[in-house]
């Protein structure tokens, strides 16, 4: 979707956007760089979801409509994550390198594995150990 200033025949530029909140759409304001005329695009929840369903970040990248992340928030997992398991910086860095959508699932499964192994900390060694057991 693009916005054109009719008077100037110039494409408007995105100025500001507001992430979608529960029950509402997302808002974006555009302004003509030539004459300064502004316009606000107010999307309804359907429109917001349709665009967000593409897996893109809305509102200048501030709001991810990651489909899997939001899915996990609304679904009961196979086994609840353990809140008492800590992650080292190195292990967290690995978690951050996998797609956002699978992080909650990966985190939950690894914490369960750590707990079953009697370990209170997830570090890179434990991830390698899990990889050797489950993924190679």
């Amino acid at each position, binding site marked *: *979707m*693009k*916005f*054109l200033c*009719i008077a100037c*025949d110039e*494409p*408007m*530029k*995105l100025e500001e*956007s507001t992430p979608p*909140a*529960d*029950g*509402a*759409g997302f808002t*974006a304001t*555009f302004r003509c760089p030539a004459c300064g005329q502004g316009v606000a695009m107010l999307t309804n*929840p*359907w429109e*917001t*979801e*349709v*665009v*967000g*369903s*593409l*897996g*893109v970040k809305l509102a*200048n*990248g501030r709001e991810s409509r990651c*489909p*899997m992340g939001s*899915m996990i*928030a*609304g*679904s*009961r*997992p*196979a086994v609840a994550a353990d809140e008492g398991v800590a992650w080292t910086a190195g292990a967290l860095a*690995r*978690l951050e*390198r*996998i*797609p956002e*959508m*699978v*992080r909650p*699932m*990966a985190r*939950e*499964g*690894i914490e*369960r594995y750590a707990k079953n192994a009697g370990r209170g900390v997830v570090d890179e060694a434990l*991830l390698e150990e*899990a*990889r050797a057991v*489950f*993924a*190679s």
Partner: protein
Amino acid sequence: MKGYRDIVGDGGSQIVAQVVAARQSMARALAGVRHLVAIASGKGGVGKSTVTIGLARALAAEGQRVAILDCDLNGPTQAQMAGVREQPWVPGEEGLELPRTADGLGVLSMGSVLGRETALRFDAVSHGDEQVWRGTRELTVLGQLLAGVRWGALDFLLLDLPPGAERTLQVAQLLGPRAAFVLVTVPSAVAREVVARSLDALAGDGEGAAPAGRVLGYVENMAGYWCRDCGAVRPLFPATEAPLPVPLLASIPFDPALAAACDGGSPPVADSPASDALRTAARQLLATLETPS
């Protein structure tokens, strides 16, 4: 006044660029996969998942490196069939590590991370209106799974598709021209009609559009009931239907032992007509894909 294509860029939202980047990321993740084969039908209940895991094991027995992506997000079955239910997904140095079964197959299935009786739910600002966006979001999830896993070097990545002729077409377009298709049917008029529609959908619209997917052939599943006691194969359906206009890769008789093996997440019995048929289908597939065109 300028038109849409006269304006370079999208005013700052970068939505198109993000979608393009996601597709490129998927292509990079699949670069080491030699053959991308979707097991589809259009019809539900014909045994796509059983054929998928059976084909995967038969291909592996032929020395192929094989993985499965369970594309049925709402009704995932591969985790159970492959014996990887509740097996954790491990973050590696270069992405999500591909979960493996005890016998070495790679299997990524939502059934590993969702509860046994848990429906797939999405959070949304458009509560109660999932008909508007849910289909698109599920396809996006599929694309992200394809892009987010370290598939590594594989000979075959088999994609176990959900039912629905429209879903078959949508996944074909998501995967692009690299993907080939194997259709699964049962010898009933109802199933044949639905599968024929999927075949037609994949063939393109006949008005210049390229085919959405290359169909390698079809597997006729539940082609009779194999009695272990007397060894006879008796018909399950009243009449033989006309074959589909693509190669028949194999006819697999219904075998309760194969069904039990799938439910139990264990390999099927090696010496049965069903196993023989799956082996035939795997060899046909190899012959088709490995023969220079």
